[in-house]
């Protein structure tokens, strides 16, 4: 089931997305050396629940140090927040996907504690991907080709494609509105209600030869279909990984970012000024 693109619905998604960003920036501002990934993920959860979040697309994630670049990741449980402690100069990524009353958002927030030259460079280079992807979605290029173009751009920059490590190698996936009244249970790291909607979408879209999971395979050999896509390019170099994640709105005739200036865009603008 595709979420409606009525402006009231978009407004709700935007609210949840902004809430998620506020959560990450407030918690990131208070990070200090010695804190563990698990503690930070817990803080995010508490913060969001206190502000009305009632279910999850996935529970909050936090990755520190070379775990931001998914180094040595072999099995899915390694994505879960662990006991890695934050140190000065370490990059970190906070990733949360809260749901409020069935409306979801999925965001990624990258920063580092103190100074890190590699992080600064990666973060600056990440800016290129936002217009790069939007342009191609607008031109209705098949998603698998965009995935490969993004991969080639990452290679040209000399970085590693890190979203290829995600389940399904996804550069993006759809986000929807969940309307079922089923219990709010977490399975693995994902909300059951989200998994159910996603599963249903996988099947219905499959019948049309499309996929809600945007990767480089033949299943993504179609332009983006109308709906909301959480786009998450993730690049890595050495022991640093950087990503952004935010909702892209795709309509019948156009595509645009749900929020003009989320955290990372503000940061790029500030750097450019």
């Amino acid at each position, binding site marked *: 089931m595709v979420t409606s693109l009525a402006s009231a619905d978009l407004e709700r998604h935007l609210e949840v997305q902004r809430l998620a960003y506020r959560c990450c920036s407030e918690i990131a501002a208070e990070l200090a050396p010695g804190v563990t990934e698990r503690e930070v993920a817990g803080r995010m959860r508490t913060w969001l629940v206190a502000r009305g979040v009632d279910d999850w697309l996935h529970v909050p994630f936090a990755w520190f140090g070379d775990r931001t670049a998914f180094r040595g990741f072999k099995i899915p449980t390694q994505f879960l927040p662990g006991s890695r402690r934050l140190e000065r100069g370490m990059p970190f990524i906070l990733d949360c996907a809260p749901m409020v009353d069935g409306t979801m958002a999925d965001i990624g927030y990258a920063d580092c504690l103190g100074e890190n*030259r*590699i992080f600064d*460079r990666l973060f600056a280079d990440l800016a290129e991907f936002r217009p790069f992807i939007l342009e191609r979605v607008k031109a209705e290029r098949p998603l698998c080709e965009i995935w490969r173009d993004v991969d080639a751009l990452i*290679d*040209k*920059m*000399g970085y590693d494609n890190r979203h290829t490590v995600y389940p399904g190698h996804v550069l993006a996936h759809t986000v929807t509105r969940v309307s079922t009244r089923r219990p709010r249970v977490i399975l693995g790291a994902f909300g059951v209600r989200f998994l159910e909607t996603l599963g249903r979408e996988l099947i219905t879209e499959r019948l049309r030869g499309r996929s809600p999971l945007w990767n480089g395979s033949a299943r993504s050999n179609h332009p983006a279909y109308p709906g909301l896509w959480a786009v998450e390019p993730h690049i890595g*170099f*050495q022991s640093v990984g950087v990503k952004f994640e935010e909702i892209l709105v795709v309509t019948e005739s156009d595509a645009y970012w749900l929020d003009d200036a989320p955290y990372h865009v503000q940061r790029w603008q500030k750097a450019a000024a």
Partner: protein
Amino acid sequence: MTLGSSKELRVVGSGGVSLYVRQWGDTSKPTVLFVHGYPDNSDIWLRTIERLEARFHVVAYDVRGAGRSTDGWMFGGYALERLVADLRAVIQATAPADRKVHLVAHDWGAIQGWEAVLDASVAPRIASFTFFGAPCLDHAAWWLRSRIRADPRTFVDALGQLARSWYVFAFHAPLLAPLAWDHGLARVWPRLLRLDGVTSAPEPSPTQAKDGARGVWLYRSNFLHKLLHPKEGRTELPVQTVVSRRDPFVAPGLYSELAARVPNLWRRDLEAGHWTPLSHPDAIARWVSELVDYVEAGEEGKECPSLRRARTHARSERAPRSRKRFDGRLVVVTGAGSGIGRETAIAFAKLGAKIVAVDLDAASAQRTAELASLIGPTAHAYPVDVSDRAAMEALAKGIARDHGVPHIVVNNAGIGLAGPFLETSIDDWKRVIDVNLWGVIHGSHLFGEQMAKTGSGGHIVNVASLAAYLPSRSLSAYCTSKAAVLMLGECMRADLASSGIAVSTICPGVVNTNITRTTRFVGQSQEGERRQQRKVSALYRLRNFTPRRVAREIVRACAENRPMVPVTGEAKFFAILGRLSPAALRAFARMSPLSQ
């Protein structure tokens, strides 16, 4: 070159020991004083001295117990105070009272030299100090302590150095060393020197057995005390050190924190073993004269470019840094804009090397340099076509002028060409041979010449391919060019060894790089060529052997001086198969991976 005659004299050292001293050259010129190590005598300096005697007043002497000097009393007679007193006596006897001397010391000479430099009564007579083959014992003690206390990685460094110092422990065992020297070690000594890279070992010295047996008292009298009670070890004097990368007794990392205690420091890196005065007299002589000239010129003196580059400053960070394998070395990589070249540049940068990234495409070379400098010291990009001799000459000159002579050159640039032999045009052939073979010849020739000339030695790595020994009907031009590179590497390795230059050839198999996306497929329409490129690229992606893994092998080939390295399973497989059954390779050659 022949050595002029020397003036011999006897100097009375501490406790009445008679020291055998020789002088060469004009006494009105700056005095350079040489102190030898263990188990040598002052003859070890003759090769260096013959290169310097015309320009300087040169003095060398046999340390007590060695060569033609008399022995000290075993217990206490070899204590560092005695050795420093000897050194002072030699300075007083040979240099006018108003003149300072330039000290050059190797191995135990360096340890004594440091003691003198840190001694308030001798230091005022020393103008500069060039040392190698051993650290200051005070510094070594601090270095070991900082590493044993820090994290496990640096602890490994400390253990590594202690393992290299095995002989120090052995020398403390009674009788062991003297017996060994008396029963054959002295006779085989020149042969052991050859193992250390001294290609023309000197005649066995008549006093070798005695020098070896007596000299162990140097260790017994001083080591333990020094390590347990190190002094601060700071000096403002101009100090130059030569770091030998393959020294079996001294880890290069031992010098990593020198600049913190020695503000006026120059560091030279040499691809050499321990006995550098014998193996690299050219480099030693040149570096000594550069420093002496600079110091003698006084206030208005200007460092020559090579000396300026060697200047070393203290690192700001406090914590002891783990040793990096290629600290202070300059690595040139061609074809560095992508694939194996880029990963190689990054891998070396990560290990502390300064990088010069060369590529036909200026933007991608620049990008590689930026990435390398993110994780390493400095990196520079040069847009050059390796097949253009004039451009390569200008490149080699420019690099030598701006950054010095490279220690490692990786000739990696290459292009792909596929298609049947009869459809490969002369121009296609020329282009492939120009880049793949001539590029390697130019790179090896120009940089090899610099390495040989300066005497600093180095390492040349040529990237060939599995195609160098696996024939294929569809790759006649490519295979031919790569086979030539492989043979060139083998010949160069044999030839350049005497100049201290190592040569490695790397043969990667199917590696996922952009070479498949730029390979020319002759005898195909444009659309057909694109289809082939896509097809082969997809195949290579499926194999998914990353260029990073090849880079790792290249670094290893340099670290371990390996002659030929097939990388990837298929490259290793066919290397073996070719030995077992050349006919099997010919059968493979008949198969065509290209659809017609």
